[in-house]
């Protein structure tokens, strides 16, 4: 059985296991002895291909006057359908100085819906919303504000650094309503607020990938590994690492991926692919380059260490004098070319990242519309393999968080046993009109730690930051996702009825 996934679309989760759909395709292929093309309908995708776990979380908490958490209780119910669901721990990232004040209980509530699968930072998104909402609320009650209450309960200075940077970029210093929601609406009937939240993720790699880098007599350079396509990030850095080793432009290298016959690779998930794969590509390319240098050295009557690959040529490693072009060098190879394998090298990968985000929103008091004006994401990721791609991933994380913050919800009708909105008209994702100004920032103070996966942490804190910004704007504390106009209007009506901010 060979699985071919040349282009799968965005690989955002729910792909660790074969799944009932993959199993059906395999069985059909075995039975028919013919290739089977698996493509799900939108409804199948929503109902059987794996969804994020739900959660219902109740939090009680108390802080000292300076905002230090003194008591924290969490009751967590995971909703994972027929599966157990996921939750990443309580409290998420923040710590009590005295652990005696902490109590939490966690249980799974089983329903007859499909089992939740590992979907885009499983457990973290849910855990973030609970603690970030509670802490934010306490920050206003204690009068220390949204930024300081976070720092007060974080010992890791990386978070202090990242929160400060996010605060600076979002314009917190000049923000007029730091300690209470905006009192009066502006002329257009809107109020504006800022909110914060943080994230963490592993993203480390492990031994699993076997990569082969091959140089052909025709000058071709190929890196082959049986990892699956995940969008085009993997394809890009696999080729880039190989090309760099031979002093060639990116276009000169080809990444062959997406086929299980290409050899062993790790199961893509948990943002572990980059940290597992990139070191093995580097190792294979290094080995292949070494072999090619040794081959060329014989012909040139020099030592292999005297040769280097630079700017599309073979050059003297000291001085850089060009000896032959890449094409000429490759033409000296036998018909089989030259190739070498590579494996994971622990010293090339790191593990564990932070992240801080800030959101600025505008709430229209007449319609309940929440418009996200700006989001800032500060993210460490060890060594960025491709800065443009890392920034795009950060943007993507913030946009997905904005999307599920404002729109996304699987509506399950228990009476009829149906998902009511299993299509792209009624299950809404953010589009062009919802886009804020996005500021993706790589935390440069962290690049010495080797390669670490960073895609998932980027989606963890955005919805919490948006919820907190909504409160900071208009005083409505939304405790369930998504933050749709009906909930904002209901919240505003309740505030007015209680004599709160108008």
């Amino acid at each position, binding site marked *: 059985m060979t699985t071919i996934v040349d*282009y*799968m*679309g*965005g*690989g*955002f989760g729910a792909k660790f296991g074969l799944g009932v759909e993959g199993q059906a395709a395999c069985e059909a292929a075995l039975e028919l002895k013919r290739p089977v*093309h698996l*493509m799900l*309908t*939108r*409804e199948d995708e929503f109902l059987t291909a794996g969804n994020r776990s739900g959660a219902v979380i109740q939090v009680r908490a108390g802080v000292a006057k300076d905002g230090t958490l003194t008591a924290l209780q969490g009751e967590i119910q995971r909703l994972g359908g027929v599966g157990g669901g996921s939750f990443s721990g309580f409290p998420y990232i923040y710590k009590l100085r005295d652990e005696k004040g902490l109590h939490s209980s966690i249980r799974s509530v089983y329903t007859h819906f499909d089992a939740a699968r590992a979907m885009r930072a499983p457990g973290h998104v849910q855990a973030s919303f609970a603690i970030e909402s509670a802490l934010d609320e306490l920050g206003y009650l204690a009068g220390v504000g949204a930024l300081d209450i976070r720092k007060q309960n974080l010992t890791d200075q990386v978070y202090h650094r990242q929160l400060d940077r996010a605060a600076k970029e979002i314009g917190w210093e000049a923000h007029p309503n730091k300690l209470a929601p905006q009192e009066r609406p502006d002329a257009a009937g809107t109020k504006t607020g800022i909110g914060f939240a943080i994230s963490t993720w592993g993203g480390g790699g492990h031994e699993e990938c076997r990569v082969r880098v091959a140089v052909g007599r025709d000058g071709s350079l190929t890196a082959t590994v049986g990892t699956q396509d*995940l*969008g*085009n*990030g993997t394809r890009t850095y696999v080729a880039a690492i190989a090309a760099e080793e031979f002093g060639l432009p990116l276009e000169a290298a080809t990444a062959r991926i997406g086929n299980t016959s290409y050899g062993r690779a790790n199961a893509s998930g948990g943002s572990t692919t980059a940290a597992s794969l990139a070191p093995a590509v580097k190792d294979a390319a290094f080995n292949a380059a070494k072999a090619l240098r040794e081959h060329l050295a014989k012909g040139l009557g020099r030592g292999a260490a005297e040769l280097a690959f630079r700017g599309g040529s073979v050059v003297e490693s000291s001085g850089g004098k060009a000896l032959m072009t890449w094409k000429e060098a490759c033409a000296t190879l036998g018909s089989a070319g030259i190739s070498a394998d590579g494996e994971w090298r622990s010293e090339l990968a790191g593990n564990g990242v932070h992240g801080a985000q800030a959101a600025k929103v505008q709430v229209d008091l007449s319609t309940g519309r929440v418009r996200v004006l700006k989001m800032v994401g500060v993210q460490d990721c060890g060594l960025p393999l491709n800065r*443009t*791609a890392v920034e*795009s991933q950060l*943007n*993507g*994380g*913030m*946009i*997905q968080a904005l999307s599920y913050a404002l729109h996304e919800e699987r509506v399950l009708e228990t009476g009829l046993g149906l998902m009511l909105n299993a*299509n*792209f*008209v009624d299950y809404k*994702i953010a*589009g*062009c*009109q919802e*886009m804020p100004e*996005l500021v993706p920032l790589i935390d440069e103070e962290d690049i010495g730690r080797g390669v670490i996966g960073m895609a998932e942490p980027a989606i963890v804190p955005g919805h919490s930051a948006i919820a907190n910004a909504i409160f900071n704007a208009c005083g409505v504390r939304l405790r369930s996702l998504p933050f749709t106009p009906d909930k904002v209007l209901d919240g505003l009506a309740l505030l007015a009825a209680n004599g709160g901010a108008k």
Partner: protein
Amino acid sequence: MPPESPDPRQHVSRRSFLKGAGGVAAAGGALGAAKAFAAAPTTERLSGTVEIELLVNGEPRKVKVEPRTTLLNALRNHCEPPVTGPKLVCDRGSCGACTVLLEGQPVYSCMQLAVDCTGRAVTTVEGLAVDGKLSTVQEAFVAHDALMCGFCTPGFVVSISACLQKNPKATREELQQACSGNFCRCGTYPRVFEAALDAGRKLQGGR
């Protein structure tokens, strides 16, 4: 060949399958229809399998389809070689991945009957490049990293090309309005609009 559209109700699927299996008579002749119409305007009737000619990216393509076959399905699964730029994602005219130009106007090809497109110019993302050279919009997408997984990209490129064709000075807001029916899951929007604005500047003559 994939089904024209998966059936959400299995029992109906089986029933209609049995019904349809009885016999598929080729009827109508869409190719000759225009001539017949000029001579004696009568009601045309199309059913079963019909051969039609589509004009795809300037090339005539003969395909055998049914009246229910969408333009998207005809392009991807009935043309040989297939035209796979337009993507099948939602199949309900709600995501934009299948966007093509029909007589220069962006439309969802999953929401057009192929038989309604005879004699009308169909331009897919493949047809925007001239002599193998990427168009200004396509080049800008590459330069600005305006794509991630790439499934929505053909639709965005087509929508933006049509918008800039009409008005190379289109503002960010106008471009966002033009692409309100195109959705991206990866979150490429910021760079899509950077690319579009850059392409607009280049199309106005400034390089």
